[in-house]
């Protein structure tokens, strides 16, 4: 019976952890995207300054 309780808890924890891990992957993807956008923005701004 004790094993049963443990197994159940493990099942729930695994699902919860998988949800957490997905958030972490989302964070990474967002950061990559943001980084790219910032560098694009900088290029655009410097070229705008140069042409002004």
């Amino acid at each position, binding site marked *: 019976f004790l094993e049963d309780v443990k197994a*159940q808890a493990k*099942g729930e924890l695994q699902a919860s952890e998988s949800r957490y891990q*997905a*958030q972490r992957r989302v964070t990474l*993807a967002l950061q990559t995207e943001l980084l790219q956008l910032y560098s694009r923005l900088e290029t655009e701004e410097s070229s705008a300054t140069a042409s002004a």
Partner: protein
Amino acid sequence: MADDPQRNFRSAYYEKVGFRGVEEKKSLEILLKDNPLDVEKLSTFSQRFPLPSMYRIHVWKVLLGILPPHSDSHALVSRYRVEQFEDVSGALTAMRFVHASTPPTELYLRVYQLESRQLPRRSELRPPDAEDENFLAIARAMEEIVDDPVDCYWLIRCFVNQFKHKFGDSIPHLPKSLEHFLSQEDAALLAHLKTSGALNSLPYCLWFRRCFAGCLPESSLQRVWDKVISGSCKILVFVAVEILLSYKIMLMGMSDPDGVYNFLSNMPQENTDAIVSKAIDLWHKYCGTPMHSV
């Protein structure tokens, strides 16, 4: 008794109209009342019998680990699964990978890629490669079987992952296995396929990587996937054997490997239920019927 044609006719008939299924359905219902669920017994059931359609999605979710064995955790875990899918798809929308009119199958692919750290940068988006195409084919078929988008995503993801992990090493050997069983069932057909050069260019990717997604209509396909999800990739070989046997006359008249490939890749959608039934019988004949429990 199994050789009694009268009986075979009857049981085939009952299976078709759904009477024989009553007993099976009852025994599945008993299994589904267990708490925790006995995943082993559910696998055995699913290997032996077709899953009643009203329980199919639920059993698949348990077999694939989308739902844990403990039924009283199902509500909580289902909520986690919904949130996880919504979190990721929301982020993909924010990143403009997907938008309101993106086909669901493409959304599923992107969610899957993000979760497995394979999402390309948005500036480096490329057309789907072979593996993406396999995923999309399975996704399109799953979409026909499953109504709920969250369930659909999870089933595709876990189906694809389980298939890769469990059977990844066996897949390259399936064409040889097909050759072996075809030699047992119809040596003449095998010889013809060999001499015409068609044997090496059968649609193996469609059969053994996409598990017949896009080849068989969903009503037949799901009966094959019952077996794959509950632990057999050998069934794929027997479906392929039965397809070849069913179109023997046509195939014997074809000598161009490309013609054979094209015909089998766009196979007629008639009689596929019979093909699958025969394939399951053949699979039981060669590989035995799992006997324990149920």
